[in-house]
C-alpha cells in the first residue's frame, strides 16, 4: 500500500516550488534592458517607469453578444474586468496605465457602457496618464472614455503594440493572441492564461473577464518564437514558469 501513497513526491515538489518562489520573490524578466514584473492578475509592472500594462480588456464583450447574436451573457464582464484592474492599480499606484489594444470588444462598445462602469473607469484614470493602444477590435479612437490614443508606444527599450510582428526588433511587448498554456499530468489537465517570452519579445495574456485563450503550442506562435519560449502561467497563488516541453497542445 505504501507504493499507492501519492504524497511523498508531491510534498517534495511543493517544497521545491516554495523554494523557487522564495528565490524569485516576484517572478520577473529582463527584456531589452528593462526589468519587468509579471503580475498574477495578468498585468505587467514596470517599476522603473511606474507603468502598468494590461492587454485585451475586451470591455463590453457580453453586450456585444447580445447585440449581434441574441445570446444574453451576464452583462457584468466590464465591471468585473475594471474591478480587477482597480485592484492592480490600487496595489501599484502607477503613474501611467497602458491598455495594449482590443480594450473594447467592438467599436460600439464605449456607447453601450453602463454609466456606473463609465464612472469606475473615470475614477481609475484620475491623476494618471492613461494610454489606449489601438487594437484590431477597436482600431478607431475610443470616444468619450478618457485617456489618449496611439498606435504604438516606446518605453525605454520597449516597444508596446497590439499585434506582435514576426522579425521585429527586440523589446516588443504585445497582446492580441490571448496566450494560454496547458499542462497535462497524471490524468489531469490545467489550462491557464500566460505570458510568453523568449527573452526578446513578450506576449501578454488577455485581461478581460470573458476572454478565452489560444494555446501557446498553436502555429500562430511559431514565427514569433523560432527558438522556443517559456510560458509564465497564472496559477491560483502565483505565476509558474513552464518550459515548452511540458506544455501540451489542446
Amino acid at each position, binding site marked *: 500500500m505504501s507504493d499507492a501513497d501519492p504524497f511523498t513526491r508531491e510534498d517534495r515538489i511543493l517544497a521545491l516550488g516554495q523554494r523557487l518562489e522564495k528565490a524569485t520573490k516576484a517572478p520577473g524578466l529582463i527584456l531589452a534592458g528593462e526589468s519587468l514584473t509579471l503580475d498574477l492578475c495578468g498585468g505587467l509592472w514596470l517599476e522603473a517607469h511606474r507603468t502598468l500594462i494590461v492587454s485585451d480588456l475586451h470591455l463590453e464583450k457580453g453586450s456585444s453578444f*447580445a447585440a449581434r447574436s*441574441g445570446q*444574453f451573457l451576464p*452583462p457584468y464582464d466590464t465591471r468585473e474586468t475594471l474591478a480587477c484592474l482597480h485592484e492592480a492599480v490600487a496595489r501599484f499606484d502607477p503613474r501611467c496605465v497602458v491598455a495594449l489594444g482590443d480594450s473594447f470588444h467592438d467599436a460600439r462598445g464605449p456607447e453601450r457602457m453602463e454609466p456606473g462602469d463609465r464612472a469606475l473607469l473615470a475614477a481609475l484614470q484620475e491623476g494618471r496618464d492613461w494610454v489606449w493602444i489601438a487594437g484590431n477590435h477597436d482600431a478607431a479612437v475610443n470616444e468619450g472614455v478618457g485617456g489618449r490614443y496611439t498606435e504604438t508606444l516606446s518605453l525605454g527599450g520597449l516597444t508596446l503594440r497590439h499585434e506582435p510582428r514576426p522579425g521585429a526588433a527586440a523589446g516588443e511587448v504585445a497582446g492580441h493572441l490571448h496566450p494560454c498554456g496547458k499542462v497535462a499530468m497524471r*490524468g489531469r489537465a490545467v489550462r491557464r492564461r500566460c505570458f510568453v517570452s523568449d527573452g526578446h519579445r513578450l506576449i501578454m495574456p488577455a485581461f478581460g473577464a*470573458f*476572454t478565452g485563450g489560444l494555446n501557446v503550442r498553436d502555429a500562430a506562435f511559431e514565427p514569433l518564437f523560432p527558438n522556443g519560449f517559456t510560458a509564465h502561467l497564472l496559477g491560483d497563488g502565483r505565476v509558474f514558469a*513552464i*518550459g515548452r516541453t511540458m506544455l501540451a497542445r489542446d
Partner: protein
Amino acid sequence: MPEGPPDDPTLPPLFADWFARRGWRPRAHQLDLLRIAGGGRSALLVAPTGAGKTLAGFLPSLVALAGRPGGTKAAGLHTLYVSPLKALAVDIARNLDAPIAEMALPVRVETRTGDTPAHKRTRQIERPPDILLTTPEQLSLLIAHREAAELFGSLRCVVLDELHALVTSKRGDLLSLALARLHRLSPGLTAIGLSATVREPDELRRYLVPQKALPGRDAAPSPVRERDGVRDATSPERAPPSPPREPEDDSSAPEAEGAPPPMADLVVVAGGAKPDLRMLEIDLRLPLAGHTAYQSMPAIYDLIRAHRTVLVFVNTRLQAEYTFQELWRLNDDVLPIALHHGSLDAQQRRRVEAAMAAGQLRAIVCTATLDLGIDWGDVDLVVNIGAPKGASRIMQRIGRANHRMDEPSKAYLVPANRFEILECQAALDAVEEAAQDTPDARLGAPDVLAQHVLGMACADAFDPVALYDEVTAAAPYAGLTWEEFEQVVDYVATGGYALRAYERFAKILRGPDGLWRVRDARVAQQYRMNVGTIIEASKVKVRLARSLRGKPGTVLPKTGRVLGEIEEDFAETLTVGDTFLFAGEVLRFEGLAEDEALVTKAGPGTDPAIPSYAGAKFPLSTFLAARVRALIADPFEWDRLPRQVSDYLLQQRRRSLLPGPRDLLVETFPRGGRHYLTAFPFEGRLAHQTLGMLLTRRLERARLRPLGFAANDYGIAIWTTRDVGERIGFEPGFLEALFAEDMLGDDLEAWLDESAMMKRTFRQCAVIAGLIERRFPGQKKTGRQVTISTDLVYDVLRKHQPDHLLLRAARQDAATGLLDVRRLGMMLRRIQGRIIHKALDRVSPLSVSVMLEIGRERVYGEGADEILAEAEAQLLEEALA
C-alpha cells in the same frame, strides 16, 4: 385472473374475432384500459415486460378509430405516442401494422423522429396521420409550431411509453410541460401512461393529468386577459393569479384543503413468473476492492456457452471494455460476442443491434445503453457484473431476458469484490420481495421551463396568466409560484439580469394587449436548434492512425477507420504515449489532429495505463444501502452470506466493531507516518465525495492538516498529518461537531463555487435554457473570439448576481445530481447522536476496503498549482542538469 371474459361487451366483435383468430384472449388489463379510456378518463398501466402493454395502450385508440363513421378522412390526428427512444417508436410502428392490416382498419400510422425528411414533416402537419409516433423532443417542436393548435385540436389520446424512465430526468420535465399544453389544446384528452413497476405509482398518475383545471382553448383567453389587464393597470405588484402552493409542499400534498390532487386511474398487472435470479458463486476469494470481476470471467464464459443469447450488463464503459476483452481471450469456441456502449460509433452500435435482432449473436457486453429498447425475444439469460446499485434497475435489466410474461426471466448477479457480495445479497432479497427503489418525483427544473416558455412564444402570442395556469397544471411544476414564473419569463426576454442592459435586444416582447410575442424568425430558429434537454458531452473521434516505420513517433493522420468517440474532457488529459482501453483494444494515444484523437494499436501484452474514462456510474441506491447496513448489523443474517464475507465481518467485529443499521462508524488509526480517519455512511460514492471535500475543509480549520481523501460507495478515508483520534479523545463533542449538519451551509457553498462538477452542471443548465448555443456533433471549434467558456460566465455571474435563475437551476441539480447533496443531508440527520468512534492501532478489515481506493482517483489538495509546480520543477531540473 389473467384473462377477461371471452365475450366482453367493451370489445367490438371485429376485435374479438381478431383476438380469436390469433388464438389469443384479451387480457383483463387490456379491457380495463379500454373501459377507462372509453369513459374519457386517463390511466396508468403498470405491468411487467411481456404483458402486452403496448397493445393495451393502443387498443382504445384502435377501437375508437375503427368505429369512426366511414369516409371521415379529414378527421385529423387522433392519437399521439411518445417514447424515450427513437428506435422504439419505429419498432412500435411495425408492430401496429399487423392488427391494422389483419382487421383492415382505416388507420394511418406514421413516425416522426429526427430522421424524418423535411417534406414528410411538412406533409404530416398539413395532412396528419391518425396515429403519430414520436419522441419528447419532437413533441416539443410540434407544440411550438404555428399550426400546433390546429394539429392537436382533434387529438383524443396520448400514450406515453416507458414513463418510469422518462419522469426521472429533465426530459420528463419537458414532456410534462408539453403534455399540459396538449391538455389545453384538446380539453378532455385521455392520457395513457405505460410503466414498469415503480415504488410510487401515484406520482406517475398525477403526472398524466392536469393538476388544476385548465382554461378551455376557446373560452380562456378573453377573461384571463381582462383579469391581467386590470391588474397591470391598477397595481404594480401583481397578485398571484391563482393561489400557488407552498414551494416546500411535496407533490403528495393535496391541492386544496381536503381535496386529493387529480390522478389518472391505475391498472396494475401483477408480476408474471418470478424471476430465476441468483448470485454467481465461484470457489475463489474475491478481493476487497476493484470492479473487474476478473475471477468470474471463465464462469461467465461457460454461461454464455450454455445459453442461446446472453446480455452481459456492466456499470461503466471501462468495465464493458475490460469484460469484452477478457471474454474474447477465453473464447476458444469463437462464439459471436459483441460490445455495445455509448462511446462506440453509432453505426457500429446499429450493426450490433441488427445482428442481435437477427439472432446472430451469442452475447452482448453492454452498459445502460441497452437498459431500455426494443424487445429481443431470444435473450434467455441476463448476467449483471458488479454491484446492482438499485433494486428497480436490476429488475429492469432482468426483464430484458425472456419477453414472455409467464416464463421466468433468468439472471445472474456477479459480484466483483466482497462488498459487492453484500450488495448483491441485498438486491436478491429486494427482488424476492418485489421491493422497488425508483427515485422520487422531480421538482421541475427552471432551465427546462425557460426553454418551454420560449417555445410557447414561438407557437403563438401568450398570455402570462394563462400560461402560468397551464404550466402549474404539469405535476413537476405544480408548486411553482407566480414570482418564480415571472422570473423565468424575464429570463427568456432579456436574460433575467438585475442590470437591465438588454431590454432593447429582448427575445420576447410584451405588446400593449398584454401578450408576449417572439421577436423575430431568427429567435424562433434559435429555439428550434436548441430544443431538448440531453446535452451530449462534447466528444472527439478516435481514429486509428498508421505509424511510420521509418520515423518512429510519427503517424499518418486520416488513414485508418474511426473507432468511436471519447469525451473531450478525457482526451484533453491524455499525453502522447498514454495507453487506454477502447473499442475492445488497448490503444496508444498519438496526439490530436483537428478534432480527432489519433491512436495506434498498442503492442500485445501492453497494460492500459490510464485507468478510466467518463462513463455512467450509478451510486448505490438509498434503499439498497439501508439493506446492506442491516445485513452487516445482524449476525443472524450472515448464514445466508458466503463464508468469505461472514469471516470478514467476524474479523471486523473482533478487531473493531460493526455498526448498527442506523449508526455511523468512525475509525482512526496511524499508518506509515500519517493518521487516518475512515467513516462508513454507505450513501454512495457521489455523496461521499462531497462529504470528503467538506470534512477536509473542517479538519483544515481545526489545524489537523488533512492531506487527501478517497471515497467509494461504502465509505471514505481521510489522511492527516496530525492525529484526529487523539483530538476526538481530548475534546468532547469534537466528532459530533465535525459531522454536524451545518457543514451543508457555508462550507458547501464555498466548495460548490469552485467545484468542477458544479461548473459542468451550470453549463448544462445554460445550454438547456438557451443562454449559450448548443454545439453539434461534427461542428468545428470556432476561434478564440467567438466562443465563450461557460466557466468564465459562471465565475462572473456568481460574483455579480448569485441568485440568478441559472445558478439556482444549477444548485437544484446539484442537490440530486452529481453531488448528491440531498442524500448527504439525510445521512447527517440520521447519524446525529449515533456516531461511534473507535481508535485503533492499525487498519481494520472494513477500512482496508476504502484504503484500497487511495491512488485510484484524484485526491484533495491536488489543485491546479500543484500540477503547475510539478511542471515548473521539470524546467528547473532541466536547467540544473
